[in-house]
């Protein structure tokens, strides 16, 4: 295998690993903040306990998010040296500011976790606010670099030399705002759905005490509200992102939809396989006019097809499937969250578990589904940029390293990621099994009496 392909595999798998933990910490730290706020507002210690147990989980996730992030950050220079040369000249600023966001998050997380007993309630809230703020800020800042790769601005490349650098124009890349909006919203949504899944899993058990049911119900409801708000937001921001593609990256939109010929009244094709021979999507469900309507607001809108572009600039056509999976997950999760809120509204006066078993079972699946949404979304976005690393400016083949040692490294990292996925899962499982929430009900009461 050549070093370009190996670089892509090594980097792609590393990002796919990092993003699981990174997204969850962004989402869960927001939920911890909200639980702390609820505790102050409602004066209910169950929320303190929720915050405490979520924090324990987040600390383990961060233990993997931080080194895996360090991996990808260093790998950028190792695997894409020519790309990073341009990054350093043009878009170094968001990377730099991101460091400060990391510092904020790491410092305040230690303060929140290890100094909690020495802080007053308001100081605690400030600490946890900065943890959540740092996490979200790092997501936004890294998205800045990603958005710039899709819609590069602020420099010219003349004979391989970077000239006319304007770093602020690079930061203000036209896709930045929409993309960051979508990325942060989906991270919040994913964190919330994972906690929905955890609470639903607990509520599926028989023989829970009233106390436990009350506790998990609060966890489920709080997460469900956030999950509903954020999945609505995701649908809206996803739509904005698609409009951005129409304006800035028409080739990516065309590949996402498997649209070969430029046309007005373009149909939206759901699933199916794009075929170069027939120049159509085989086996998909077509909804006439919808794509034009989504992208331009009118069925008369003209959408450019792939044939407008030289074939060696086409992204791989399977991104159509990745895109569909992401969108399908988005609408499924939105529907399930809305249904849960409906059940809550109808049965809110009832005691006990108010959600039917089948819905709880579906919620358990929501956690993994949301993470699949994140994975497919990112792989879609990065692979959809191919053959370019910096769209229209630097090809992936020109960005890659020519190191000859990549095969063995890819093997080593793959083993590492699989082992860590398994052990992290087991550690979380055993920790929460050994330290059931029932043990803690008593101890929080004790603490409050002191």
């Amino acid at each position, binding site marked *: 295998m050549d070093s370009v392909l190996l670089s892509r595999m090594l980097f792609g798998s590393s990002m796919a690993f990092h993003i699981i933990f990174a997204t969850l910490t962004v989402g869960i730290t927001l939920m911890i903040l909200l639980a702390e706020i609820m505790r102050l507002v409602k004066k209910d210690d169950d929320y303190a306990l929720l915050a405490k147990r979520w924090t324990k989980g987040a600390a383990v996730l961060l233990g993997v998010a931080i080194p895996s992030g360090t*991996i990808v950050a260093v790998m950028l*220079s*190792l695997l894409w040296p020519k790309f990073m040369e341009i990054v350093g000249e043009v878009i170094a600023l968001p990377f730099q500011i991101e460091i400060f966001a990391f510092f904020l998050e790491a*410092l305040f997380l230690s303060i929140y976790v290890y100094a909690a007993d020495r802080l007053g309630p308001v100081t605690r809230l400030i600490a946890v606010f900065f943890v959540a703020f740092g996490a979200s800020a790092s997501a936004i800042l890294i998205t800045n670099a990603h958005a710039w790769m899709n819609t590069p601005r602020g420099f010219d490349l003349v004979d391989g030399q970077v000239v006319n650098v*304007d770093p602020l124009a690079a930061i203000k890349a036209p896709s930045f705002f929409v993309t960051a909006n979508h990325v942060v919203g989906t991270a919040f949504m994913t964190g919330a759905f994972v906690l929905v899944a955890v609470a639903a899993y607990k509520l599926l058990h028989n023989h829970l005490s009233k106390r436990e049911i009350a506790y998990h119900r609060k966890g489920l409801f709080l997460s469900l509200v956030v999950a509903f708000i954020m999945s609505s937001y995701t649908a809206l921001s996803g739509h904005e992102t698609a409009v951005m593609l129409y304006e800035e990256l028409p080739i990516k939109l065309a590949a996402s939809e498997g649209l070969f010929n430029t046309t007005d009244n373009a149909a939206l094709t759901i699933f199916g396989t794009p075929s170069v021979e027939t120049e159509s999507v085989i086996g998909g469900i077509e909804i006439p006019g919808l794509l034009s309507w989504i992208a331009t607001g009118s069925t008369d809108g003209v959408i450019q097809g792939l044939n407008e572009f030289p074939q060696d600039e086409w992204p791989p056509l399977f991104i159509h499937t990745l895109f569909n999976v992401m969108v399908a997950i988005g609408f499924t999760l939105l529907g399930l969250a809305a249904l849960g809120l409906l059940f809550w509204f109808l049965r809110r006066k009832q005691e006990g578990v108010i959600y039917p078993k089948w819905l709880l079972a579906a919620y358990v699946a929501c956690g993994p589904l949301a993470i699949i949404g994140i994975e497919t979304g990112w792989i879609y976005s990065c692979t959809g940029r191919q053959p370019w690393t910096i769209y229209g400016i630097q090809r992936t083949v020109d960005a890659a390293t020519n190191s000859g040692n990549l095969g063995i*490294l890819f093997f080593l990292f793959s083993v590492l990621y699989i082992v860590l996925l398994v052990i992290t899962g087991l550690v979380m499982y055993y920790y929460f099994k050994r330290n059931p929430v029932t043990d803690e009900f008593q101890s929080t009461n004790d603490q409050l009496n002191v």
Partner: protein
Amino acid sequence: MESINIALLIIWAFLFIYAIAGSIDFGAGFWAMYYQNQTDTESASIANRYLSPSWEVTNVFLVLLVVAFVGFFPGGAANLGTLMIVPFCLVLILLTIRSAFMVYSHSVKRYTRLFTIFSGLTGLLIPALLITILPAAIGGYVMNDGVNQYILVDKLFSSSTFYTHIGFGLATELFLSSLLLSDYAREANSMETYHTYRRNAMTLGPITLAFAVAAIYTLIPHAPWMFENITDSFRLILLGLSFLAFVIGYSALWWPAKTRRKIGQPRYAVIFIIIQFGLASFAYSSAQLPYLLYPDITVQDAFTNETMFRLLLFGYAGGMAVLIPVFIWFWRLFMKDKRYLLK
């Protein structure tokens, strides 16, 4: 000062901070493992009490160093990245195992010992591998067959300077962490532990010094130009001062303390040894100029454009202004507050 010198100074400062903080961090992880079965003293728990709140922050300094280097010297980062791909990837793997298992070990009590061994040993190797960047940057370990680049592993493994640098990395890590932990233990009024770490520091101090000298001497056949630079008069003065700082710092381990039956002033030992490292590393790094990578890349070639440089400078100033108060608060909570130290 010229922009490029400011940039070099900033990078050097970050490198210096991370060299110290990282050594202490990885060393503390090793001691936490080494003493974990020893239940009669607090040596392991003191090390853990230092590590728990601080390892994430220390890790950010590593990322800061990488990002600052890419920002200020994009050309250098690209070349160094290609050259160092194998050792850096090994460091990344070890770093990941180390951090993850450290966190696991706090969560699953049944396997704490096993997990601690993983994190302690992997952490021990990281500084040793990181420091191989020094001999590699001096040049001569890479082959280019026209298509791909390969590290000349056999040549690297058979050169004495490679091993003296590794030995220096290991010794430094254990020495600095012992020193700091002895101070930390004294702050926590754990005299038993203080004496354990003080004894470690007493043994490791001369070993570290010996490796430092050996590392420089084994450079001679490899990079005579660099040895020449190191022995010019300005740097010889720096090295002399550095040696003096070492003697003062090391002797502080025996200075009389105010209270009865206590010997040594570990706070002064830490401060003077850090000064010693600062002077020596400044002499060493400046001797490598103007090369980032000998003989291909000079700092001039690798430097970023003036606009970006200005922006980054503003960025660091602004970021530091926000962060320094937080760092001070952090320091008070975990390094000073008796309620935490005496837990």
